[in-house]
């Protein structure tokens, strides 16, 4: 379930980055303004993905090693996000779609 947990981290951080106004403006310049409620929903779903990733890792690797992997996955996913937002911000929606697809496939295959 390592790929599932990493994809969930990536998806969660994509949603959280799109929940901030400046990042959203860079990633989706033509997108209409989100309401406060919509922004909160994005944040809630984003954090839920991170929490689910933690649960998946704890189930697969045990609590101690699962937490270590969670720290590592979040760092790697956040670094990917930061690089993308700095150098290719319009790639964030593509990463969002790719990570969502990866979550669905990896959960189905239990990898």
């Amino acid at each position, binding site marked *: 379930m390592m790929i599932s947990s990493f994809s969930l981290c990536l998806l969660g*951080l994509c949603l*959280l*980055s799109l929940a*901030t106004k*400046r*990042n959203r403006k860079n990633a989706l310049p033509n997108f209409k303004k989100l309401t406060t409620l919509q922004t909160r929903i994005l944040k809630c779903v984003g954090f839920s993905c991170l929490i689910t990733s933690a649960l998946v890792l704890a189930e697969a*690797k*045990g609590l*101690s*090693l699962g937490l*270590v*992997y969670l*720290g*590592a996955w*979040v*760092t*790697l996913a*956040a*670094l990917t*996000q*930061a690089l993308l*937002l*700095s*150098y290719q911000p319009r790639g964030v929606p593509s990463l969002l779609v790719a990570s969502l697809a990866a979550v669905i496939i990896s959960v189905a295959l239990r990898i």
Partner: protein
Amino acid sequence: MSFRHSMTWLHTWSGLVLGWLLYFMFVTGSTGYFDEEILRWMQPEIPLQESSISASEFIETAERRLDQVATNATETYIELPLGRSPFFSIWWHEAATPETGARGLWHNEKLNPNTGEPVITRETEGGEFLYRLHYALHYIPGWLAYALTSLAAMFTLVAIISGVIIHRRIFKDFFSFRRHKQRSWLDLHNLFGVLPLPFHLMITYSGLMLLMFSTMLPVPASSYGVGEGLRAIYDEVFTEHDSRSATGISANSMSTVSLYNDALKRSDGGLINYVAIKHPGDKNAVIEMGVLANEGIEQHKPIHYDGVSGELYDPEEDASKHSSAKSFYDTMEILHEGLFARPLLRWLYFLSGLMGAGMMATGSLLWAVNRRKKHTMSGGGVRGLALVDRLNLGTIVGLPIAIAAYFWANRLLPVDLASRAHWEMNSLFIVWGIALLHPFLRWKKTSLKSLWCEQLMFATMVYAFIPVLNAATSEHHLGKALLQGDWVMAGFDLFMLVLAMCFAIAFNKLRRRIPNPSVENSAAGVKV
């Protein structure tokens, strides 16, 4: 002064005062995650395993060699080239003999995985030296090194916590790196600090804790006294208890290979990468099979056997149970050392460590950039700033150059040189000394930008030519290693090329972007 201002002051100075030492600790500590791989590269005499050899054959070969060399051993250890370990080696311990005054010693031999013959390798400390540097430093007494590194760990912990407090928009700026703005150094510093924040907190807290018995001596001394009392409690807590001592009565031991096969079945397909025998040939012999753990944060889940009957044996049965404080200490130690980490997690540990080094480097550069701006506006003196600028360069780029020099020395120093390992270590510090002196010697002749470019170009060259050096001085050149699937040798060379590329990119970028203080200061009428 408001709370946030006082925290900013604390963050700045706790980070800056020992910033260069912390950078050194992060860089050398990170290399420690690949200490065995580095040692493998630094001992190119060890041949690659040419055909598939079973672990049973390895054990039989190793036992034959131990029968020849370790006749009086009290403990033997066979390291198998499985899992992460690239070595096939044997270890044996000979007890102290009070009559002759000889001390108890561990001996080690690396064996050729194809023939079982001992391999004579060059004298080197390998990656272990780099790993040890991050807490024991070099050329200074251990107590002083522990005090300095412990103090540095404390300063980092303070800097991290105060950094979180002063970072107003920690969530909003979580991913921000505005590379073309004035804030780019601050953004980069924040990214390196915030993204691996759990790692930074864990590594500094656990580092502080691992050294507490050296640096916070008055605490245990107040309860147990000094001298014998303190020694006794240290032995009780930290020494591995041998619940079975040797009887002196000889007995035939079970076949190690049959116990290995039994352990293999019990380990559910897990790898066994060492076999240890305590009191070989004695009635109380114990055979330990080092099964690599598939879960949890422990590296091994060893299986113990009674060496004579072959029955399972639980060494913890008689040993005193660990307190929760000791368990917590052990957990933090395991997390800090990361020995349990498989390749991917190990690389992420390494990456987080380098980001820690990046955090310290950008912090020092940020201080210099901000101070320069302030001085340019006020027109004040910049003596301290010039010193920081020079030390920044000599440390941030100079240290990687010095580490490359350590690898170069490994291949260029004569194999039979006396104290060879020491000269390899000296090479690192000699080259680092030159790199530190370089900006001081050339300061008046050239600009800061040019000095950075000179060192970055030199770093690019020394790292780019390491694979060439390897090809010229060993049989394991990159092409051959790739063809043979020798990922340790190939990985080392490839990583050196990646580092060379990073320095080359930095060289290109900085050539255009680093502000030239001579020009800036002369424009502002300030003498550097």
